[in-house]
């Protein structure tokens, strides 16, 4: 099993009447609410937490990209990953990821990710999300029905740019470059391992299988509701007759660990409530621009998600959220038991642990993370013994020894 400590970097100062005063946490929330000088301290506290996660034994530390979003303050996850290269040395830097349809030219992503891979000594996991409709269409203006075509072309360009040893010309529909010449190029050859965040598009299953990418389902609604979607993925894996390595899949889970179940509610209840009631307060008109999902996806799967949108976070109590496993919370024993169920039922080799939740203060974040690392993680390590707890295709290949530096004249 690989455990990645994942940060969303939310703004922790949304007021109590946030839901009444604002229709959405995302896209059109006035940035009047953001206080840059306070933001300075918050960014550094969050980066410290990611570094701490490496110290206590997490395999990876994760960042992601959002735009115009008060619960995701990383428009550029690459900047965050770059700072993390300096004070970490072992953990995978899981950038999950860059919305590659948004960059012009998308070669920029190939270059920046190569920089992170070189800076970190080959520790980058590269994520290529299509991006949510809120980010991609509403905040960044990409035409919904052309988003996937742009994405596919950008992916093609990035992989070719990483693999090439000489300049080449790229004549795409959206990007035309006479000289594609990626300096630097990544340490990991031909490319860093790639994770694809997916939300149930059937096309994405095949894309991952075709390219040997790991399918990552980043949901906030917990593992019970993820079962149907992940079953669809594993069914497709079986149909395509490829191996069933659990490292082909990953899942994000909100997790809170305390000494006892009762203590967990006391410590984390308010922050979980902040997350589900303020951070996830998204105006439905921004959720799914028409044309963003393919007709095929709507016909096969998205409908079940649509009916789920009826769920009503504001009325959900701690009991509802934990019993429904939106949140895995409790004593180390409780959390271990539920995490084992998650890992086995979804058949995942990667877990993205959301241990900072909403407006959680630093001491609680560290307390919960340390309990997870010390008392839960070791007991979940060997759930996939057939795979030696590692699959080379889906994890980083760091360089072993630093290359001695010499001056050019030598």
């Amino acid at each position: 099993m690989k455990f990645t400590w994942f940060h969303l970097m939310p703004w922790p100062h949304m007021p109590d009447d946030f839901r009444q005063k604002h229709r959405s946490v995302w896209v059109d929330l006035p940035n009047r609410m953001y206080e840059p000088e306070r933001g300075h301290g918050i960014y550094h506290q969050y980066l410290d937490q990611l570094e701490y996660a490496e110290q206590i034994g997490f395999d990876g530390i994760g960042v992601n990209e959002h735009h115009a979003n008060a619960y995701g303050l990383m428009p550029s996850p690459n900047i965050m990953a770059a700072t993390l290269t300096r004070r970490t040395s072992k953990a995978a830097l899981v950038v999950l990821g860059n919305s590659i349809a948004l960059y012009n030219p998308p070669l920029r992503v190939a270059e920046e990710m190569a920089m992170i891979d070189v800076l970190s000594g080959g520790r980058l996991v590269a994520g290529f999300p299509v991006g949510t409709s809120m980010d991609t269409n509403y905040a960044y203006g990409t035409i919904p029905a052309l988003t996937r075509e742009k994405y596919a072309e950008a992916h093609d360009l990035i992989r070719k740019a990483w693999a090439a040893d000489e300049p080449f010309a790229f004549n795409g529909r959206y990007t035309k470059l006479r000289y594609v010449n990626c300096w630097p190029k990544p340490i990991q050859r031909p490319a860093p391992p790639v994770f694809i965040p997916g939300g149930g598009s059937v096309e994405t299953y095949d894309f991952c299988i075709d390219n040997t990418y790991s399918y990552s389902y980043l949901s906030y609604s917990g593992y019970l509701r993820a079962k149907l979607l992940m079953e669809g993925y594993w069914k497709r894996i079986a149909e395509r007759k490829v191996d069933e390595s659990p490292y082909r899949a990953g899942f994000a889970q909100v997790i809170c660990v305390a000494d006892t179940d009762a203590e967990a509610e006391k410590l984390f209840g308010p922050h979980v409530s902040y997350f589900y009631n303020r951070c996830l307060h998204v105006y439905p008109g921004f959720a799914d621009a028409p044309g963003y999902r393919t007709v095929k996806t709507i016909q096969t799967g998205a409908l079940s998600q649509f009916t789920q949108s009826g769920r009503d976070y504001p009325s959900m109590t701690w009991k509802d959220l934990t019993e429904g496993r939106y949140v895995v919370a409790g004593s180390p024993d409780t959390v271990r038991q539920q995490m084992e169920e998650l890992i086995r039922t979804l058949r995942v080799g990667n877990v993205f642990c959301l241990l900072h939740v909403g407006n959680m203060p630093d001491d609680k974040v560290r307390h919960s993370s340390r309990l997870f690392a010390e008392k839960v993680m070791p007991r979940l390590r060997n759930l996939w013994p057939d795979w030696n707890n590692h699959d080379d295709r889906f994890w980083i290949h760091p360089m072993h020894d630093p290359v001695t530096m010499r001056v050019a004249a030598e």
Partner: protein
Amino acid sequence: MKSRFLRLKPSGARIQVFEAGRGKDLLFLHGAGGHMPNDRLLAALAGKYRVLAPLLPGYGQSTGEDGLRDMLDVTLHSLDVLEALKLTKPIVVGHSMGGMIAAEMAAIAHTEVTRLCLLAPAGLWLDDRPIVDIFAKLPYELPALLFHDAELGKKLLTAGGGSMDDPEFLKQFLVTRARQLGMAGKLLFPIPDRGLGERLHRITARTLIVWGREDALVPATYGDAFKRAISKAKLVKVAKAGHAVGQEKPAAVLKAIKNYF
């Protein structure tokens, strides 16, 4: 209203064309919402003209939307449809997005389009009068946005509809919406401006512009901007009408067209 199919060469797109009435030829290009159930404007126009109303790919049973990515693609496609219908010098009428397409056709092929009628066309953007983001609106908000009389709008928009609680109806609704607005987004998202303002001066057609005075989506000020930019243009503003001016006041729109052409 009866429909038939055209196969366009060489794109291979299959186009559904509604046809009704007798008289002079009139080509009608619909807006982002497509035709309405029991379309009152088409019915009114068919009382006086031979109306041909093709559906853009992505709408109804018309196919070929994947091959249409930008304004030029759609403009040339629409000129191909005009040619395939074997119409000579019809009155070209377009509503909203259809008006934007009609204006582009007239700007690019000004010898082909000599009589032009724009009903609350999209295609311009005025910084001081921004157009509402239709792509972030929920279905229940549409009647008040598109009609001056929201109650009438609600009745017209939901005619022949089903229940959102019925999963089959819901799925069909979402597929239709994804196809139609997915196509429309290529011209209108995120801002409905694809440079038409720089080409309007090329239009030599006699042009009638019709606007609902109470248009809450594309304010009537835009009518004045279109009129200023097109050399032979007349602007008619219809009282107590919103963006769906032809649905809300079909008789007034027919009268304006009859009087002008």
